[in-house]
C-alpha cells in the first residue's frame, strides 16, 4: 500500500468530517435496521420506508451544504478519497437516486420488504458515493464491490419470483467474473506503480514509455469492470434479464445510480489514473481513449436496435438504458479525444447522467405501479393508462419523450450538450450515428405512449389508485424533467465546476 496509509490523516477525525454524508448514511442504514427490531413482529413495514427516505433527504441536505472549495480538493483517509466538486455533485446524484428509490419501494407490494431492503439501498448509495470519490485503486475496488454486492442482493430480493432469483444470480455471476478481471488489472497496476495504489502513482507509471504495453493491457482489464457497471456492449448481457427480473424500484436504481457510479469511476480513472487531459497523457491513456469510440457506437446501436424488438416495457427500458449509456459514452469519447476545453465535455457527461437518473426513475416508478395494478409489464398492460391514471400516464410520457430527447424536456438539453462536445472535437460520424439511433428510438418510446393513450381495455373505466409516495416521486421527477430545461443554468454551472475539479492537484 506504499506510504498512503502512513500519513497521520487516517486517524484524524477531520477526515471523517469530509465524508460526513457517507458516515451518516452508514449510521442511518443501521438505524433503519434497528428500528425494525422495535416494530411489532409481522406488523406493517411501511413506516420503515418513510423513515429511510426521510433520513436520506436529511442527509441530502447535509450533502448539499457540504460544498467543498472549488479550487482546493482535499485528500482524505490518507489519499484514499478525494473530496472535491466532482465528489460533491455525484454524491448528491446518488443520494437523490437512493431517496427516490426508497420512496418508490414503500408501496411496492410484490414482496415483503423489511428493514434490510432499505438499509441495503442506503449502503449501496454510500458505496456509490465512495466510488465517485475514490482516488486510489484499493478504494476503487472496495467501493465498487460494496455497491455491487448490495445490488446483487436487491436484484434477487423478491423471493416469490423465479425471475428475480434468476436476476440476482445472473447479475452476481456476471459481476463476479468482470470484477475478477478488473481486479487482475488493478493488481497489475499495483505492481507497475511500484506498490503504490494512489491514482497519482498510477498516472506516473502510465506516463513511463517503457511500461507502455503492460499499462495498456492492465487498463483494458480494468475497462472490463467499468463496461460492466455502465452496461456497455459487449458487457451488457446481464442488463435485460436483471432489469426484468429485479423488483422494479431496484431496476430503476440499477439503471440510473449504479450506471452513474460506473461513469464516475470511469472518468476518475481516465483523468486521474491514466492522466488523460493532463501533462501525463500517455500512449496507454490514448489507447484506452481510442476504445471509447467503438464502445460508444456498439452500445448505442445494439441498445437501440434490440429495444425495438421488446414487448416487455422493463426489457425495453433495459435496452434503452444501454442505448443511453452509448450516448453518454459519446461524451466520454469526446473527453478522451482531448478537447481544448475538457470541462465542457465532462460537464456534459455529468449533466446527462444526472438528468437521466431523474428521467429513468420516473419511468420505472410508473412501470412499478402498472405492474402492481395491472399485473404485468408487457406493453399491453399499459393500454388505456391515459384514461385510468392520467397523471401517471402524463409522467410516463414526459419521461419517455425526455429519454428520446425531444424539446422542451431536459433530455433535449442533455443530448445537445453531449452532441456539442462531440462536434467540437470533430466526432461528426459519431453524432450522425447517434442521431440515427435517436430517430430509431422514436418507435419504441412512442409505442408505449401509443399504448397508454390509444389502446383501450375493458378496465378503462376503473380508476387506478396511486399511493402518495409513488405519486410524489412521479410528480417531482416529471416536474424536474419539464422545468430543468428552463432552469438549467445553475445546474450546468455546477456540472462545470465539478468538471473543473480535475484541474486542481491535491
Amino acid at each position, binding site marked *: 500500500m506504499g506510504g498512503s496509509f502512513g500519513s497521520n490523516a487516517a486517524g484524524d477525525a477531520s477526515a471523517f468530517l469530509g465524508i460526513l454524508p457517507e458516515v451518516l448514511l452508514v449510521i442511518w442504514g443501521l438505524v433503519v435496521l434497528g428500528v425494525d427490531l422495535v416494530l411489532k413482529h409481522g406488523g406493517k413495514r411501511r413506516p420503515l420506508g418513510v423513515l429511510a427516505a426521510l433520513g436520506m433527504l436529511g442527509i441530502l441536505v447535509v450533502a448539499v451544504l457540504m460544498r467543498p472549495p472549488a479550487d482546493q480538493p482535499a485528500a482524505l483517509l490518507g489519499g484514499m478519497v478525494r473530496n472535491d466538486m466532482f465528489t460533491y455533485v455525484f454524491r448528491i446524484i446518488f443520494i437523490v437516486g437512493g431517496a427516490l428509490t426508497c420512496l418508490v419501494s414503500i408501496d411496492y407490494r410484490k414482496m415483503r420488504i423489511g428493514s434490510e431492503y432499505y438499509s441495503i439501498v442506503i449502503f449501496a448509495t454510500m458505496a456509490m458515493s465512495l466510488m465517485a470519490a475514490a482516488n486510489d485503486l484499493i478504494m476503487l475496488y472496495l467501493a465498487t464491490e460494496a455497491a455491487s454486492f448490495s445490488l446483487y442482493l436487491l436484484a434477487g430480493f423478491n423471493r416469490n419470483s423465479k425471475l428475480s432469483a434468476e436476476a440476482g444470480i445472473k447479475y452476481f455471476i456476471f459481476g463476479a467474473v468482470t470484477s475478477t478481471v478488473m481486479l487482475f488489472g488493478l493488481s497489475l497496476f499495483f505492481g507497475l506503480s511500484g506498490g503504490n495504489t494512489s491514482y497519482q502513482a498510477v498516472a506516473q507509471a502510465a506516463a513511463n514509455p517503457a511500461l507502455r504495453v503492460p499499462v495498456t493491457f492492465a487498463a483494458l482489464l480494468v475497462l472490463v469492470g467499468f463496461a460492466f457497471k455502465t452496461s456497455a456492449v459487449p458487457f451488457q448481457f446481464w442488463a435485460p434479464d436483471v432489469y426484468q427480473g429485479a423488483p422494479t424500484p431496484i431496476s430503476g436504481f440499477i439503471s440510473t445510480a449504479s450506471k452513474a457510479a460506473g461513469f464516475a469511476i470511469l472518468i476518475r480513472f481516465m483523468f486521474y489514473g491514466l492522466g488523460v487531459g493532463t501533462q501525463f497523457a500517455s500512449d496507454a491513456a490514448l489507447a484506452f481513449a481510442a476504445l471509447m469510440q467503438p464502445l460508444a457506437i456498439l452500445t448505442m446501436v445494439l441498445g437501440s436496435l434490440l429495444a425495438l424488438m421488446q414487448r416487455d416495457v422493463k426489457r425495453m427500458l433495459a435496452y434503452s438504458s444501454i442505448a443511453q449509456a452509448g450516448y453518454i459514452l459519446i461524451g466520454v469519447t469526446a473527453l478522451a479525444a482531448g478537447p481544448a476545453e475538457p470541462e465542457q465535455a465532462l460537464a456534459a457527461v455529468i449533466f446527462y447522467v444526472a438528468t437521466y437518473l431523474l428521467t429513468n426513475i420516473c419511468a420505472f416508478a410508473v412501470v412499478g405501479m402498472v405492474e402492481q395494478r395491472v399485473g404485468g409489464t408487457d406493453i399491453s398492460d399499459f393500454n388505456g393508462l*391515459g384514461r385510468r391514471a392520467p397523471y401517471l400516464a402524463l409522467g410516463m410520457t414526459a419521461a419517455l419523450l425526455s429519454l428520446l430527447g*425531444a*424539446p*422542451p424536456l431536459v433530455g*433535449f*438539453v442533455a443530448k*445537445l*450538450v453531449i*452532441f*456539442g462536445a462531440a*462536434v*467540437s472535437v470533430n466526432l461528426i460520424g459519431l453524432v450522425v450515428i447517434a*442521431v440515427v439511433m*435517436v*430517430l430509431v428510438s*422514436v418507435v419504441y418510446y*412512442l409505442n408505449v405512449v*401509443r399504448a397508454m*393513450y*390509444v389502446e383501450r381495455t375493458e378496465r378503462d373505466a376503473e380508476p387506478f389508485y396511486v399511493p402518495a409516495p409513488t405519486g410524489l416521486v412521479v410528480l417531482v421527477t416529471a416536474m424536474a424533467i419539464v422545468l430543468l*430545461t*428552463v432552469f*438549467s*443554468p445553475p445546474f*450546468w*454551472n455546477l456540472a*462545470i465546476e465539478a468538471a473543473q475539479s480535475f484541474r486542481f492537484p491535491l
Partner: protein
Amino acid sequence: MANFPILTLIMLVPIIGAAIILLIPRERDEAIKTVAAMASLTSLVLSIAVFFGYDRVLGGFQFQEKIDWIPQFGIGYHVGVDGFSAPQLVLTGVVTFCAVLVSWRLQDRPREYFAFLLVLVAGVFGSFIALDLFLLLIFYELVLFPVYVLIAGWGSKRREYAAMKLTIYLFVGSLVAIVGILALYFLAGNSFNWFDLQANIAALPDTEQVQRLWFLPVFVGFGVLASLWPFHNWSPDGYAAAPTAVSMLHGGVLKATGAYCALRIGVQLMPEGAKFWMPVVVFLCLAGLIYAAAIAYRQTDLKYIVGFSSVSHLGLVLLGIAALNELGLNGAGLELFAGGVMTGLMFSLVGMIYERAHLRDVRELNGMLRVMPLAAIGFVIGALTLMGMPGLPGFPAELQILMGLWDASQTPSTMFQGSTNGWYAIVAVVAVISIVINAAWTLRVAQRVYFSEPKDMELQKLPRLDALEKVAIVFMCAILIVVGLLPNTVMSVVEAGVQSILRTIQAG
C-alpha cells in the same frame, strides 16, 4: 412604448388564461368560457396593436425583446416581429377568438378543453415571434402535445387513430428539422440566435455545401406541418377527427406556422440551399395541388373537403415562397393571412352543421340555407376567396404568387446547371387550374348543402345559429372583405417584411 414587452404579453396572456381556467371550479361553465374569450380577445387586441404599430418605413424586426437565458449554450430569450410575421399574429388572434366563440356550446369537460386550447395558442404565438431557435423549438413542440390531447379527447370518429397519426407525423417532422437546426448550431458557432446564425452561416468557408446539405431536412421537416406533399397524409384524417376549434386553429394557423418556420429558418438562414433545392419544392407543391384537387373531388365528407382546400391553400403559400422573389413572397405573406382566415371560417361553418345534425356527408345534407343563411354566405365567401375572386384577398395573393412563379421561371437553375427554371411557368398554369377546380367543387358542395331544395325535414328543425356564432362568422367574413377591398392594409406590412427577407436572400 419601446420597452413595453408587448410580444411576450401576446404569448403569455393565453398561458395566464389557461392557469386561471384551471383554478375555476369545474361547474362554473360560463366563467371558464368567459376567461378563455377574454384571454384570446386580449391577445387579438395586442396583436392588432403590433400590426398597426409596426413601422412600415423602417422595416426589419421590431418590438424586439432580448434576455440572456442560458448563455453557456448560446440560448437567449429573443423575440421580435417583422412585416411577414406581424399579420400572422393578427391571424392567430382572429382565429383563436372565433374558435372560442364557436366552442361556446361545448359541454364535455370545458375546463380542460379551453386550458389546452389556450396553451396551444400560446405555442403558436411563440413560434411566430421567436428569434431564438431553441425558443422556437420549445414553442413548436408545445403546440404538438395539446393538439394530440384535444383531438384524442374531444374529437369525433376514429379520433385516437387520427390524433396519433397526426402527432407522429408532426413529431417526426419536427425531429428532422431539429437535426438540421442542431447541425447549423454546431457548424455556425454554437448559437441559437437567429441573427448570429444567419451571419455565421453566411461566413462559413464552405457555406454553399453546408446550406445545400442542411436545407432540405429543415424545410421538409417544417413542411410536414404545412402539409407538404407527400407528407400531408395526417392532415385530412386529423381534421376529420378534430373538434371544430382545433380544426380551425390547425388548418388556419398551425399550418401557417409550418410554412413560416420553413421560410424563416429554411430559406432565410440558407438562401443558397433554397436556391438549389427550390425546383424540388416546386415539384412537390405542384404534386400536392393536383393531388388535393383530385381527392377533394371524390370526397363527400365536408370536413375532408375543407381539409383538402387547406392543403391547396398551403400549397400556394409554399409555391410563393419557392419563387424566391418579391412578388412570390408578397403573395405568400398575404395568402397565409387570407387563407388562414378562410380555412378557419370554413371549418367553423362545417362544425356548426355537424354539431347540430351530426352529419357531415354532403349527400345527406340539403336546404341548409333556411336553417343558417349566414353560414351559407360565409361558405360562399370562403370558397370564393380560395378561388381567387377579385374583391376578396385571395385574388391579390394568388395573382402575386403566380406572377412571382412566372418571373422565377426566367431565373437560371442552380440544380440543373445551364438551364432555366422554365417549367415553373407551366406549374403556374397548372396551379391556377387546380385551384379553380378545387374551389369550384367547394362551391358545388355549397350549392348542394345550402342552396338545394330541402328534402330532409328533420334538418329544417335544427336550432338556428346563436349570437356568438353569428359574431364569429361576421367577424371572419368582414376581415376577408375588408382585406379584399383594401389589400394594402396587409400588403404594406408584408412588403416591408419581404424587403428585408429579399436582402438576406440576395446577400447569400
